[in-house]
């Protein structure tokens, strides 16, 4: 097992501008010369809107292929061939995107869905534990329809659906957006518990700087697609 879970070398994510002339330079929204993320660490990403945080998270979650550069996951180069079986990588590094999307099913079915995809057993105990981790009671919520959840509850159910998978890496994009103080504390406890008990590596994007600094080992400041500073200067440049 590699002590560095992610190594990024010369990573760039660029897009062609709509309507741009042929041969015109692509617009790059992310440019990271070097970044290493240690296994079991909690890394925070902060920055203005459009600074490249979510793009970086999608690359780390194998949802977006960088235009150039090399991405190593657990010591293995993630190239085009590896991404052909991307679902196997995405089962190890699970992303909770900025827009929560639940399946049109009950809360317990939503939480069980990822387990079923992996062919893992689903028990009420697992679902109850996942719900408890995000501060929701099994008795009140497990049979509730996705339609009868508030925005904050839906967000916590989506997080529970990822925690129950016990992934090696958990990538969270604004996990506390729209949550009250008590709920953010539950999320923090869940994040710390995942790292402590399972050794999960977490990369968290948040605008809530006090909350993020209370969880993260390292906070990376991003601007215009680049990492401009690091609170701990841990492997970033």
């Amino acid at each position: 097992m590699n002590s560095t879970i992610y190594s990024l070398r010369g990573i760039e994510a660029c897009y062609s501008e709509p309507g741009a002339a042929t041969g015109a330079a692509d617009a790059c929204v992310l440019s990271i010369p070097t970044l290493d993320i240690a296994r079991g660490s909690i890394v925070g990403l902060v920055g203005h809107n459009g600074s490249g945080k979510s793009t970086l998270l999608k690359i780390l979650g194998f949802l977006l292929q960088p235009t150039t550069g090399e991405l190593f996951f657990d010591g293995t180069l993630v190239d085009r061939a590896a991404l052909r079986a991307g679902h196997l990588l995405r089962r190890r590094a699970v992303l909770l995107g900025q827009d929560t999307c639940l399946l049109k099913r009950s809360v317990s079915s939503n939480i069980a869905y990822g387990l079923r995809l992996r062919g893992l057993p689903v028990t009420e105990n697992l679902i109850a534990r996942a719900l408890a981790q995000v501060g929701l009671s099994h008795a009140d919520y497990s049979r509730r329809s996705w339609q009868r959840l508030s925005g904050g509850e839906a967000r916590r159910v989506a997080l529970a659906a990822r925690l129950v998978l016990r992934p090696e890496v958990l990538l969270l994009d604004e996990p506390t957006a729209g949550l009250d103080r008590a709920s953010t504390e539950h999320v923090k406890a869940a994040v710390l518990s995942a790292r402590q008990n399972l050794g999960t590596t977490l990369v968290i994007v948040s605008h809530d700087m006090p909350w993020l600094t209370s969880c993260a080992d390292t906070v990376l400041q991003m601007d215009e697609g680049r990492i401009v500073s690091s609170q701990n200067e841990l492997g970033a440049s």
Partner: protein
Amino acid sequence: MDFFSEGFAKAVALILALDPETFSAVWATAGVTALALFASLALGLPLGFGLGYFRFPGRRAARLFVDWMLSLPTVVIGLIVYGLISSRGPLGEWGLLFTVPGMALGLTLLGLPIIISMTATAVETTDTRLTQTLLSLGADRWQMLIATLVEARFAMALAAASAFGRIVSEVGIAMMVGGNIKWHTRTITTAIALETGKGEFATGIALGVILMLVALAVNLLVGLLRRRAA
């Protein structure tokens, strides 16, 4: 108003007495609708899902063709099917003209574009975040396809209900291809047209009441399914 009240009273009497002629039209309608709806769903759901889910060359042209089929007048469909299955047509040997399967063939051409178009739209408009959610949870291609199908289930049920409503209430194709033969291919709608033409409003209203009750039952069922499955 007497016209309606008298007609309605006689309609209730015909229904309660299980009038053979009235119920012959009901059974013919049930048979032809079931056949046409089954064929429309069997062909239309996979085609509509494919059209909405996959990106392939000619997809836009295929979509345009389906939308064009939606707007075809029913008498034109009737004419085409009549031409196909009449004794001089390419399918004349099958002896489908003035039969329930022949009518079902024509009504399938009516229901099929509805199922394809509504299913494709349902799949296309499935929450765009769904793809990212499924990917991020580790779904492979096959699991994503199944999950998208399951997520679009209510819209597909609505497509089926819409096609049913269109098929069961159609008169032009049924009249041209079925021939409105008593005890055989006379459906509720062709019987209403005939009875009203003869001045037999009560029978027409009786059949109309049955048609409306069937439509109401189907809509209640769709509503129930939607609530329970949520």
